[in-house]
């Protein structure tokens, strides 16, 4: 019996590769080939780095969404949250309470993180303590954060005033470290931390347990509500990090900033192979998904035969195809 078992254990390594985890990367490879055929410029390192940089916001938000979705919840408020946190951040920087521009930026970054975490905490507490469906709860806060932003900006835009601050802050989006654009470095760093948290830490195990069966988690002594709330807080922090990269890019926000970003983030998570009903988390797949979304747009821009006005429709189709592919892979496994 034992010899028999050992044999099968080594033999099965190859067959064991989880197709669902690999699928998004295969899709990415296919897209790269298609893109190269459409336009030779597409495959240039420069173009790809640009696309990756542009996908950074959605990627960062989607990393947070991976936590929320894995624990069985959903956060629709992230797009509004981006606008809200960014407005507060810029208003704070314009207030001039700290004279030194460097210190000012550092304080503003800290403020963004705190506000993001608090927004996430609010979402988490409303769903867990208030026992409201996450869909409804975050639909509510989505309206609240958006409304507050519109009120703060009085319907217009909020723009960073100090040129000194702008110059100092610019490299946070436009700079590069060892030749790699800063946003890409940030995305990789944040994803690494998230992957460590999900796969190597107790908390990650709890997230997956709560997402796959909250009752089993409760009977195992896991504080289910706390795990869910923390996931929302992590989502808030990820939104804040995205904002920290977003503000130096344009130096301004408006009431329409981040509209529909929640759908893009959810799409990225689903393309990445995380189950929408919770219980499995694939955070590297998630950033791959965000990259794919941006790549598709890029290919359409570079090609002449599809109108770029169809981007929304194509992205919608992608999410449906991703779900179909995932389901067929589940059957086979």
């Amino acid at each position, binding site marked *: *019996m034992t010899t*028999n*078992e050992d044999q*099968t*254990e080594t*033999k*099965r390594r190859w*067959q*064991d590769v989880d197709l669902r985890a690999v699928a998004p990367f295969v899709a990415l490879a296919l897209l790269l080939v298609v893109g190269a055929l459409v336009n030779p410029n597409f495959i240039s390192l420069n173009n790809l780095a640009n696309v990756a940089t542009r996908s950074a916001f959605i990627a960062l938000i989607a990393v947070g969404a991976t936590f929320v979705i894995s624990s069985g919840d959903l956060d629709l408020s992230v797009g509004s949250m981006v606008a809200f946190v960014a407005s507060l951040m810029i208003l704070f920087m314009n207030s001039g309470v700290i004279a030194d521009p460097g210190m000012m930026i550092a304080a503003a970054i800290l403020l963004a993180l705190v506000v993001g975490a608090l927004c996430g905490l609010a979402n988490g507490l409303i769903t867990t303590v208030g026992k409201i469906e996450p869909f409804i709860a975050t639909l509510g806060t989505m309206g609240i954060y958006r409304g507050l932003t519109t009120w703060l900006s009085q319907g217009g835009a909020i723009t960073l005033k100090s040129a000194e601050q702008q110059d100092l802050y610019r490299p946070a989006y436009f700079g590069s470290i060892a030749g790699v654009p800063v946003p890409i470095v940030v995305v990789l760093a944040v994803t690494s931390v998230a992957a460590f948290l999900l796969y*190597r*830490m*107790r*908390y990650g*195990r*709890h997230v*997956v*347990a709560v997402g*796959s*069966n909250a*009752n*089993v*988690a*409760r*009977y*195992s*002594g*896991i*504080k289910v509500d706390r795990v869910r709330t923390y996931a929302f807080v992590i989502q808030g922090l990820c939104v804040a990090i995205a904002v920290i990269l977003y503000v130096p890019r344009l130096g301004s926000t408006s009431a329409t900033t981040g509209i529909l970003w929640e759908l893009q983030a959810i799409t990225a998570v689903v393309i990445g192979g995380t189950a929408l009903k919770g*219980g*499995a988390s694939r955070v590297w797949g998630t950033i791959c998904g965000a990259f794919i979304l941006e790549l598709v747009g890029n290919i359409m821009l570079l090609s002449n035969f599809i109108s770029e006005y169809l981007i929304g429709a194509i992205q919608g189709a992608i999410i449906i195809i991703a779900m179909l592919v995932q389901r067929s892979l589940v059957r086979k496994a």
Partner: protein
Amino acid sequence: MLSKPLGGDDVVLSAQRISKSFSGVQVLFSVDFDLRRGEIHALMGENGAGKSTLVKILSGFEPPSSGEIFLDGQPVKLPANGAAEALGIAVIHQEFNLAEHLTVTESLFLGREVARYGILDRAYMRAETRRVLDMLGSKINEGSVISSLSVADKQMVEIAKAISRDARIVFMDEPTAVLSRGEAEALFKQVRKLRDLGTSFVFVSHKLDEVTELSDRVTVLRDGQWVKTAPTAMLDGESIAQLMVGRELSSLYPKKSEPNVDEARVLSVIGVSTAHVRDAHFDLRRGEILGFSGMIGSGRTELMEAVAGLYPRSAGEVHIDDALMPAGDVQATAAAGLAYMTKDRKAKGLLLGADMTANLTLQSLDRHGRWGYLSPASEAKALARARRRFDIRVRDAGVVAGRMSGGNQQKLLLAKVMEITPKILIIDEPTRGIDVGTKQQIYHFIAALARDGCSVIVVSSEMPEIIGLCTRVVVMRAGRIVGVLEGDEITEQEIMRYSAGLKQKAVA
């Protein structure tokens, strides 16, 4: 019915040289099986021997990798996913297949709703459901939603569903694992009646007494291979057990050792009430094995969940080592050293989509690394230890819990709870679906725990288990504790008398 005899008189269903592999791992090896008209054929074997797999193949839920199936002497390819019902084949699955949000009536008539002029005839379906449930002696309300039912009641609904289909072949995969003696008897009465009318039954169970009592013939599987088919009259419980395990079994139960009278009281439950439990008092001493007996619905599980802080209590106090436990706070009771093992392993016990490691360590993750970090090496060591200790047999170490055999899932659940090395252990149906060989191991394991100073509460519907293991037995009836038996009083008759309400003892 035209039936060509094949391998004996009046064979309705037969299988020849059936083999089955799951993704390269073979679990059945050229098994032969035949089922006669009007017989009850027991299928026996250790956990993971392949009983459920054979049942699924013979009912069309899994295709065989090779081999042939004959229905009434004709070779057939059974239609998949329960469509074999049209051929008169019904299955009671080991793991329930009920849609949680339907009512009992809707579940019973799922897929064959009765309509008059295109409008559902609800009154008829309700009455029919009531009739079948009454026949089985079940008091379940036919309008209840499945998700609100206890495990035992869900099992009754599964049984009612299969029986109501007027099938001529019924597969029953461990239908009695969560039923107590009384409910099982009611089921057996119906089974015998239907058999005498010509229905054939395949009966899987790990309760040897039921098998010797009910079945006409027995087939034994070991490690996926056919071992023997013989008339039950020629075998007894012991010889079946030997055929299954392949070796001689020593005594099933360890020697009882009563704790000293002056041992410290580790748990006191004072006047606890919940939705269905009224005013429960009992206590537990260090190193004691206390049994809880009673019919289904007598409130044992609810009381234990309230004690463990998993279910709200409306009144009363729970003390562990003289410290009062806050109501409904699992973390506090767990920190005080109390562990509870649920009997509902599918809904509350295991993450069916996760592998063995994730399940095993879920409750005890803080032991596998500091600062919230998890050490894969430490977890792997825990898994290796648990597999040895509880003899968890899988042919593929990376298998997800939902694909393990029922008995091995149960062992994994027990191992998971034991990972936290509790001082007080409450186990609800500890040997649900576990084969005799492993049962013996688990009983000795529980006794050894008690000798080492752990206090154990065993909630069980299996009377022999309670009698063989416990030094004191509490009997519950309709939400109340009606008796506490000690020493020579612990007999099947006494326990039955209390749980049926024929006798009652005032308890302090």
